[in-house]
């Protein structure tokens, strides 16, 4: 409260000082005349302080992030100081509910899974008028993308982002330990059966590692991270891409809730099998996300399904401790499924993003900051680092890094210290692949040079056994999206919508039943499954499916570029 008041006072004071000094604070609504892509110099901007809530855990080791070289550069350029608050724990919607209950929001906030809650609570300032007058943001979105970001009431509340593709590591997959693959003589893993058998054989031969039991399979089961077992792992097996808790038919765009599908049953059967063989993680259904990450880091895990970005903390630790047991993802499918869509579509995600809250004292200045942030100059710093230290202009005018700078870019700790690609939303919003003005590739990790620099020696050695260049080689490539992804749709449906509540309730019930399904005796499995399905039958899930189908179909015209 008092911090808020202090902030208000500070801003008021700064405004007054600004007026006295004759700076152009009078008409903050009109963006300052800039030279196109570049952010205007910081000294032309009124100094301001904004609070920002990142709906993600802190990644930078420097706290506050603004004290990193990249943060300092940004502060100087935009003349904005940020008070950043990170999400503690992993429950985004819980955090949003607290904010809504208090009615006090940070000035800027990212929405993540809580878009629907925050929108229903009226947490955001409409951004429509700002976009037209913006210098940079208007270049980041096409007309149809603007249409996609526009909510039912005709307003735009947050800026979505473009999901860019990671060419170095696949986004999700069924992971296997490198040591397992080595012992199995580097097989090409394609089917779910084969994946399971490899794990079973491996644990039988190697029951312990470093004095502790080898974990055949483990999965995250805490709060929303449980999505991996609730619906996340099974859809890929049946050849569907990531569409939230539904699968969407690629031709008819018809949505089906995953939890009751046969392929989900098969996934649970796998857990049951592993559990009854005694090689599943005995702590699987009672561990926190931190415990899971440390298990991954210990090298004891033989196999698991997850999205790479979710287990990056564990994988970084594993790479540092024990790279010979690194986890490698495979696009595993059921026997008879022809195509896999693990890597999904290169798509625009309008369902979540960054917005300005209604309790922000000076939304005009906040928008100016976002507009500056979207400039090529700021984006370059956020993703490439500081000019001179981290990159320089090459002969062709493009950005280059020396070998040493590439090595630093590959070093997680260096990036955390320097502030490069930290701050979740910040660095990848708006997430364009190339800057509209210069055509420079926005992310160093998408440049052709990076592909040659990305891998450590142990990875190159591993890849040589598969005769492959990247860990994505055995995955189907991404493609252009033809509809709004299901996860994006789910996030923006209003919280109070009974259909959304049905979907979320189904998830709660699923989280209760997955442990039961996994831990029951094999002969009881079908009975438990039937009981589970009958519980879900009481919910209006068919209406939820209809809603998602309708929204996906409505979005389709805006995805025809």
């Amino acid at each position, binding site marked *: 409260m008092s911090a808020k008041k202090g902030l208000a006072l500070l801003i008021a004071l700064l405004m007054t000082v600004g007026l006295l000094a004759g700076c152009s604070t009078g008409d903050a609504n009109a963006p300052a005349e800039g030279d196109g892509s570049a952010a205007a110099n910081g000294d032309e901007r009124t100094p301001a302080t904004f609070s920002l809530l990142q709906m993600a855990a802190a990644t930078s080791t420097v706290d506050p992030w603004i004290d990193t070289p990249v943060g300092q550069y940004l502060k100087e350029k935009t003349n904005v100081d940020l008070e950043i608050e990170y999400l503690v724990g992993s*429950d985004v919607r819980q955090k949003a509910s607290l904010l809504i209950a208090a009615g006090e929001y940070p000035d800027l906030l990212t929405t993540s899974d809580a878009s629907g809650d925050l929108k229903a609570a009226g947490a955001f300032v409409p951004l429509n008028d700002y976009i037209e007058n913006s210098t940079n943001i208007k270049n980041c979105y096409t007309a149809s993308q603007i249409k996609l970001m526009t909510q039912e009431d005709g307003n735009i509340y947050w800026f979505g982002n473009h999901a860019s593709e990671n060419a170095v590591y696949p986004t999700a997959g069924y992971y296997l330990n490198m040591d397992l693959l080595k012992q199995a003589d580097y097989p090409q893993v394609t089917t779910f059966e084969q994946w399971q058998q490899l794990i079973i054989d491996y644990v039988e031969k190697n029951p312990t590692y470093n004095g502790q039991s080898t974990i055949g399979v483990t999965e995250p089961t805490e709060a929303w991270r449980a999505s991996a077992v609730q619906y996340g792992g099974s859809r890929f097996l049946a050849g569907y891409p990531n569409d939230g808790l539904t699968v969407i038919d690629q031709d008819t765009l018809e949505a089906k809730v995953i939890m009751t599908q046969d392929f989900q049953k098969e996934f649970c059967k796998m857990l049951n099998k592993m559990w009854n063989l005694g090689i599943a993680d005995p702590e699987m259904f*009672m561990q926190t996300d931190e415990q899971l990450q440390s298990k991954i880091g210990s090298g004891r895990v033989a196999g698991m399904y997850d999205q790479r970005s979710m287990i990056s903390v564990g994988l970084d630790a594993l790479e540092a401790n024990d790279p010979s047991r690194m986890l490698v993802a495979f696009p595993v499918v059921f026997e008879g499924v022809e195509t896999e869509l693990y890597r999904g579509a290169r798509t625009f995600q309008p369902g979540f993003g960054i917005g300005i809250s209604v309790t922000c004292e000076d939304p005009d200045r906040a928008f100016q900051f976002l507009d500056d942030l979207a400039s090529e100059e700021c984006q370059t710093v956020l993703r490439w680092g500081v000019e001179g230290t981290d990159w320089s202009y090459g002969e062709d005018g493009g950005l280059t890094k020396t070998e040493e700078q590439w090595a630093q870019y590959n070093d997680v700790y260096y990036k955390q210290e320097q502030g490069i690609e930290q701050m979740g939303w910040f660095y990848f919003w708006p997430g364009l692949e190339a800057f509209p003005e210069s055509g420079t590739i926005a992310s160093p990790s998408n440049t052709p040079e990076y592909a040659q620099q990305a891998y450590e020696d142990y990875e190159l050695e591993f890849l040589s056994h598969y005769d492959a260049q990247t860990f994505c080689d055995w995955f189907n490539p991404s493609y252009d999206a033809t509809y709004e992804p299901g996860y994006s749709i789910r996030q923006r449906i209003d919280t109070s919508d009974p259909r959304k509540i049905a979907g979320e309730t189904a998830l709660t019930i699923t989280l209760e039943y997955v442990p039961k399904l996994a831990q029951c005796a094999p002969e009881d499995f079908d009975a438990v499954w039937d009981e589970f399905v009958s519980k879900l039958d009481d919910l209006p899930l068919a209406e939820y499916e209809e809603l998602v189908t309708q929204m996906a179909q409505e979005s389709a015209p805006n995805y025809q570029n």
Partner: protein
Amino acid sequence: MSAQSSAIVKPRKQIGFWRQVWRQRQLVILSLPVILVLLFNYVPLWGWLVAFFNYKPTTGFNVFANEFRGLEYFQALFQDEYFWRGLKNSLGMGVLKIIFSYVFSLMLAVMINEVRVSWFKRTVQTISYLPHFVSWVVAANLIFVTFSPDSGIVNEVLLALGIIDHPVSFMGMPQIFWLMVALADVWKSAGYNAIVYLAAMTSIDPSLYESADIDGAGRFSKIWNITLPSITPTIKILLVLSIGRLLSVGFEQVYLLKSASTTETASTLEVYIYDFYMKYGMWAQGSAMSIFNSLVSVVLIVGCNLLAKRLDGEGIM
């Protein structure tokens, strides 16, 4: 309070209002707790209104701006199987916790009271009440690590002794979750609760023990016939008070100790209320349930007091 004082002061103009306040300053200070209770325990009851409206948080304190729904949310609640399950879990865990916490803290107090070596007595007391000051967040982690099926110390010891053949997932078994919560509570609060009994025991007249000695009473006979009867009023008061809190099992304790595998027996009413508010943003339903929670508590307190009166003719209210 101040309104009252001014009412008294008015007819006698010669003494100023503030002067009067100053004279009765002790009374004014005494009234502060009353104001605090009103402010923090009764004013928030305004929020109960939320349960009768289709409440949207955007309307803030103006509950009446929402659509009135009457008892709709209460009806929905009573038809909800998860509500009944929550009630069962709350009651089960609450009763078990009360029994365990009574038996163990009373036993501990009696035993400490019987110890005559003062340094030993103090050490035991300190060690036993220390866990009370550990936050549940830390305590829950300690408990998970201790009982972990993946090389937790309890399993290691039981395996080494040959009592079990393979690790048992103590914290992952829905069947014993209530018991684990009760035991965790004993570990954490028995020592602290024992202090109240110990205090009551110090006020027992030593001459009672002396005359019992002359009559040739043994140690157990003295405990049974002197110590326990003397602290019965204390036991009764604490019992009635704790029964009033029966349904508030200790939210953070349960929330931190529960996991995906124990959902069935770990979802108490409070966890459910929390989910309503925090996960689904269903404010009205959440409020309806917490009103129910409070009503049950009132009924339990009154009932328990009546029972206490019936048993020996004196209640505490």
